[in-house]
């Protein structure tokens, strides 16, 4: 069995991490178990459920479909980067709370990261656009309706920040 390793330097939520990783180590496992950023969740390990979605150089990608070594020199944002603590939530997180957009909360980090990227591209989405953008993230609890409501509310709040 190969034990080929790579030395990598990855920026995650603004912090540079230098590590030696096995070539086969998944980026999702690297984030969760090496960097202990366990907010990124793993639901299927075959790129369907979207729970492990992170922002990779600003784009929403599935961290279970990448190797840690591929992140060398890149910039990653995870759910832990959205809010400094539980008292200061991102407007998207606040809207999710206000609209009851989560139940068990397991798929939530992936949905937040997907929607963050979406709302940066689409500032005034309609419901159909939100549903289309959400369709790569599986949620088994909510039936999506409150998530859709939350994303629409967050878009509105982000367009018109409170005075």
């Amino acid at each position, binding site marked *: 069995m190969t034990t080929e390793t790579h030395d990598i330097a990855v920026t995650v939520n603004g912090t540079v991490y230098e590590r030696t990783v096995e070539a086969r180590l998944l980026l999702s496992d690297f984030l969760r178990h090496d960097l202990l950023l366990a*907010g990124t969740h793993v639901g299927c390990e075959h790129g369907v459920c979207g729970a492990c979605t992170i922002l990779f150089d600003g784009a929403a990608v599935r961290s279970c479909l990448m190797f840690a070594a591929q992140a060398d020199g890149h910039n990653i944002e995870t759910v832990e980067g959205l809010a400094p603590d539980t008292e200061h939530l991102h407007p998207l997180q606040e809207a999710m709370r206000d609209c009851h957009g989560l139940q068990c909360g397991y*798929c939530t980090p992936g949905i937040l990261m997907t929607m963050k990227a979406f709302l940066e591209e689409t500032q005034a989405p309609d419901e159909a656009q939100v549903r289309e953008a959400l369709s790569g993230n599986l949620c*088994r609890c909510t*039936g999506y309706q409150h998530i859709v409501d939350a994303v629409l509310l967050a878009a509105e709040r982000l367009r018109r920040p409170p005075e």
Partner: protein
Amino acid sequence: MTTRAFGAPVTRNEDARLLSGRALFVDDVELPGMLYAAFLRSNVAHARIKAIDVSAARAREGVVAVYTADDLGDYWAPGPLLVPPPPIKGITFNQRTQVPLAKDKVRHVGEPLAVVLAESRYVAEDALADIAVDLDPLPAVVDLEKALADTSACVHDGVRGNLAAHVRQSRGNYTAARARADRIISRRFFYDHGASSPIETRGIVACWDARANRLTIWDTTQAPVFLRNGLAGMLGLSERQVRVIAPFVGGGFGPKIMLFYPEEVVIPWAAKKLDRPVKWIEDRLEHFFATTHERGQIHDAEIALSAEGRILGVKDTFLHDTGAYNPYGLTVPINSQCTLLGPYVIPNYDSTFRAVFTNKPIVTPYRGAGRQHGVFVIERLLDIAARELNIDRAEIRRCNLIPPEAFPYDNEIIYQDFAPLSYDSGNYGPILEKALDMVGYRHFLAEEQPRLRAQGRHVGIGVVCYVEGTGIGPYEGAKVQVQSNGKVSVATGIGTQGQGHFTVFAQVAADQLGVSVRDIDIVTGDTDQFYWGAGTFASRGAVVAGNAVNEAAKVVRQKILRLAAEHFECAEEDLEIADGKVTVVGVPGQSVKLGELALKANPMRGAVRPGTEPGLESTQYFGPPSGATASGVHAMIVEVDPQTFTLEVLKYVVVHDCGTVINPLILAGQIHGGVTQGVGNAFYEQLVFDEEGQLLNASLADYLLPTALEAPRMQIGHTVTVSPLNPLGVKGAGEAGAIPVGPLFAQAIEDALGLTEWKIELNEIPLSPARLFELTSRRQ
């Protein structure tokens, strides 16, 4: 005066942690020196085990141990029967429960044969490939009807015809009712439920602390207390030596109430034996085989009616696929048998089922827990009856509803909780009326549908009724404790998987104790925090644990008032509790904070009166005499593309009565999620097995969970009929959304495509575009 928290759409206490990625799930537990487990699973459904050679795996660098059934020694034993059969006369039940690691024989694909413990999960999985297994395949038992034949292979040696159970329940005299009926309708129905597929798979971490002589388990279970008790027994420990923590759990929906899964038996044993923490996290492929399903039933059902559409009786005979083992007893088929009766007066009922062992994964309750199957049968029978008797579909339902004056209504058969199936309260007519109103039933049929049909559109409507037995016993408890910082701690034994317990239990306690919901800290699923309880199942958390919280909070309220009265030297009646403090009414400035009283209630010096209990705390238990029956109606307008058979749900309405509502926001979420799982069950999800017992679609790319594009926007209405069985008047709501969606889809799609003109009936679930194409191809 504080606003009442109970009944308000309060946002959730737990959300900030979950949203910021700071909530603990099982796979987030990291311990020094941890080992990682991977299981070798059978790749055939039915075989004798000739040999398992693990020597090469043991020799691999990084592997610490490899175990097979033989290594478990006396620890190896079949699991317990979790739910014994109810006391029904003449019942047959053949108990065969799952084993920790297969010995002699494998009985379904995915049954574990060996476990590898290694320094990393990657190495553990490498080592699985080193294990040589010699299996001698046997014919797989897959088809339910063939399984019952004398000539069939036997899943369990000694259980001929693979008969797991045979149960008959009846009321009245169906034969006599049939003899005087104007119309008899008989049909065969297939209803297949699926995999609950929580986004978090199962997992367990076990840590043996040799110094403390204690075992700590983090597990994705819905039943931490039972898990602790069972593991203590198996490992020869006392319950106090085992702590089970069900931290945040990423969805359950039923299969996480099942225990003891083989991994739950093997991992704690290995952790103790090796004296190192061990983690096992199920991967998605494993989940499709190693976590229990709910699957198919075949019903041969008959309904006898008067010419006016009154139900005189129903006879039903069905087969139930229980999978390779039956640790959960008869809960699922009993629910099917009982819930078929629905909200209707069915004076004569004769129902018989046989549960059948097959070489497929185990069947245990999944949200709805067999209720769907029964509801499908009665609702489809009523649709067919309406057509044959030329009665409106809503009217045939309305005229058979149990009238409000008939409650409590005794169905004269036994329910899953061993109690008589008696509906505590209900008022079904207004629910149906409201749903018809909200969906625009009469307007649609009279005007919209003809207009849209004239445009060539295939648009149909459906309306279905159901009841849900919820909130069953035995009991739950809660400990309510005022902390010296003024916050209130509430601990209960149930586990939580997203239901909002951290908020609804806080709402219950907040009004009693005059504190903000945000100042109430709920602990669920930690056996060191609360010792007793049964678990989260059967839509019972809010009903049973919620009432326990209420009882405990009431006692604490009395303690607060008594202590404050002593403090102020006044009468308790002169005191008011609000905003976290006790105030003497009408005397400004005369107040004491709850935290100060909590400190005062725990004196460190001096004498107390005999009988004094320290602290402002109370532990109380609540056990209802029987379940509270919730009810509802779903209605939908759907458009079907006649070429591709894709659906667009134009309107989806749920009207629901679950008694007093604690939190309408959370209730709506429960219903939305349930409906969407129902939509998956009705039209997208199906576990497809071949004749060899191989599951052909074991990935989320092939087993299709609804996405935001398939989930309809839902409108929800409520009616409230309080339950007389508990002080809060609540009924459960967790499963209601999921239960009636199958027959609703069948009815509305039939209507949209005008299938009855072609004498085509949709008497099976799940449907799909491909299946609709097959079923309707004889139209041309």
